[in-house]
């Protein structure tokens, strides 16, 4: 009974969320940015941690390895839930991602090299079908890879949340039962082609200009890495 009610409520809230996300997620306070960021490639992003692999689900319901969507391209990964309507939460993150996506699409050098990954932190309600609707909405005119994933169960998701240090809890309603509000500290994770987390953006850092510079920095790092053997070869040839 409870599950049926939750499913119905989730549908209503999802509709609201999509409407909000698609139109205007609402006013959100952008972090203050009173500086000129350093040039892309003029700094090195720290290698914070490798991403641990896990089995998640695609909208089709097929199993997918997390490593398959966190390696091979520069990845910006975030956790969300489809019915989150907190204007300072997921909708704000969504708007930031759209801003970054538009900046990435304007940079010819980054074409095909960047992906976004959104992982639901509420697999109890965000079924493959639910994230499929969300995926259809965000991938429309997306112009780049944007994977939306969920987990088979909370049990499958917990190691992923733990690995990313993503603390999640559910608020209790007045009667003591779990409410529909899922608390989590909003973070985005920038992951390099090798699957290593290179930057983490909490809300103070959700500055699209800086985030794009970080993506470009990783791209330039890739280019330098790819160029290195060629330089060595050229030097050998010169001798």
């Amino acid at each position, binding site marked *: 009974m409870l599950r049926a009610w939750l499913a119905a409520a989730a549908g209503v809230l999802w509709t609201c969320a999509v409407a909000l996300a698609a139109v205007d997620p609402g006013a*959100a*306070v*952008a*972090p*203050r*940015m*009173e*500086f000129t*960021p*350093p040039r892309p490639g*003029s*700094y090195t992003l*720290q*290698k*914070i*941690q490798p991403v641990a692999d896990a089995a998640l689900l695609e909208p089709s319901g097929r199993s997918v390895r997390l490593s398959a969507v966190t390696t091979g391209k520069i990845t910006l990964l975030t956790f969300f839930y489809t019915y989150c309507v*907190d204007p*300072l*939460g*997921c909708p*704000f993150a969504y708007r930031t991602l759209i801003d970054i996506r538009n900046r990435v699409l304007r940079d010819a050098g980054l074409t095909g090299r960047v992906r976004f990954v959104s992982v639901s*932190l*509420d697999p*109890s309600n965000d079924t493959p079908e639910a994230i499929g609707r969300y995926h259809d909405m965000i991938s429309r005119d997306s112009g780049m890879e944007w994977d939306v994933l969920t987990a088979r169960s*909370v*049990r499958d*998701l*917990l190691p992923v*949340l733990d690995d*990313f*240090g993503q*603390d*999640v*809890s*559910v*608020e*209790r309603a007045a009667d*003591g*039962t*779990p409410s529909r*509000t*899922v*608390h*989590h*500290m*909003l*973070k985005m*994770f920038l992951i390099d082609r090798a699957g290593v*987390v290179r930057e*983490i*953006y*909490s*809300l*103070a*850092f959700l500055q699209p200009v*800086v985030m794009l510079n970080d993506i470009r920095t990783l791209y330039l790092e890739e280019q330098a890495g790819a160029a290195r053997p060629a330089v060595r070869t050229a030097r050998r040839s010169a001798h």
Partner: protein
Amino acid sequence: MNHKASMSTRIRFCSLAVGLIAAASVARGDETCNSPYISNLIKGQEDFIHVWTLGEKGLGDGSDKLVTIDVNPASKGYGKVVGSVSVGGRGEAHHMGFTDDRKYLWAGDLDDSKIYVFDVGSNPSKPRLVRTITDLAAKSGFVGPHTFYALPGRVLIGNLSNSKDKGGVTGLVTYNNKGTFIAKYDIPTGLVAGVKGDGYGYDVAVNPAKNVLLTSSFTGWNNYMRSLGEVVKDPEAMKHFGATMVVWDLKSMKPTQVLSVPGAPLEIRWALAPGQNWAVTAAALTSKIWLIKQDAHGAWTAKDVATIGDPAKIPLPVDISISADAKGLWVNTFMDGLTHYFDLTDPEHPKETYQKKTGRQVNMVSQSWDGKRVYITSSLLSKWDKAGEDNEQVLRGYRWDGHELTAAFEVDFTKEKLGRPHHMKFTAKPAAQVALADPSR
């Protein structure tokens, strides 16, 4: 503020929205002197104070320990020790800091350079030691981990010394929240924008809106692990104190300016309200308050703006705590046992408006977000604390009504056989939330 109301505030504060508000615009006052990146800043009544306590030979088990005290006036255990986690050794316990999720408290030893990680999120009344990090010197060449400052997913640590000569030249390191070393950064010893650095370190503090990290400078292991009386009588030793602050580009972790701030500038506190572009520090040896401010051209300047007590008597200002509105500053002077209040309404001209003797020796001072509660501890360093009757070791809680500090409770750490209390951090009971995996969902 009653407890119920504060819990409600806390619940709201645990939400996403709070993360944004906290990160984007605040981080002032002592509760708020925490890194602006941590979540769940406590704006209401704190429930517990955790005190990183130096072990003392012959007292209790003699080991460093994390002592937890109930500080909620509505609690039956108010003012009492409710927990103590011994680390099983004595290594000069000093400072600590939360991870960005406020679930873990990292606490450092200045002598053996061990870093202890306590779980304070699962049950703040009963912290648990979950990890000990021992590779700081091996990975970085630095020793004396002092300040622990949360960055997203990692901890930035400001160190005091190095393993080679145990002098004051040192640097910064980052570890990820799992305790794995990530990177090291030398504090500059050469010229930076025309000013020579001394390489010394102490506190670290970030202003995210400015992309600026500030560091201050103290002294190396050779001095801080030696008797204070000997150090002050040794002219050569007295040459080895920090006299600079460094401005860093946080994103690139590169120094951009070295500021001349003589006399060992210690704690750094930013005023992070919108439109503010300044921080303050206190220089221990010269007993001065310094203002670090951005000028009209964007460059950072350091200016001596006030005197604390009589510098000739070396009162030794050892800790400061800025109010949430950045209009007031508590300053503890160790030698005379005074707690001072400075009106910071005009940060260019701080004025002392109140002082009270709060102990025979006083060190750390921490205030609640609302400024109504002030806590002090007594110990500076094991070799620098006073001797005999003056070596009282206490935590004292006070109420502050804007005019007078009124004693609320006291914990005698000697009587309780705990040791020497140093750094304090606040926690609150978890809000009424359900785990994601709770079967009731």
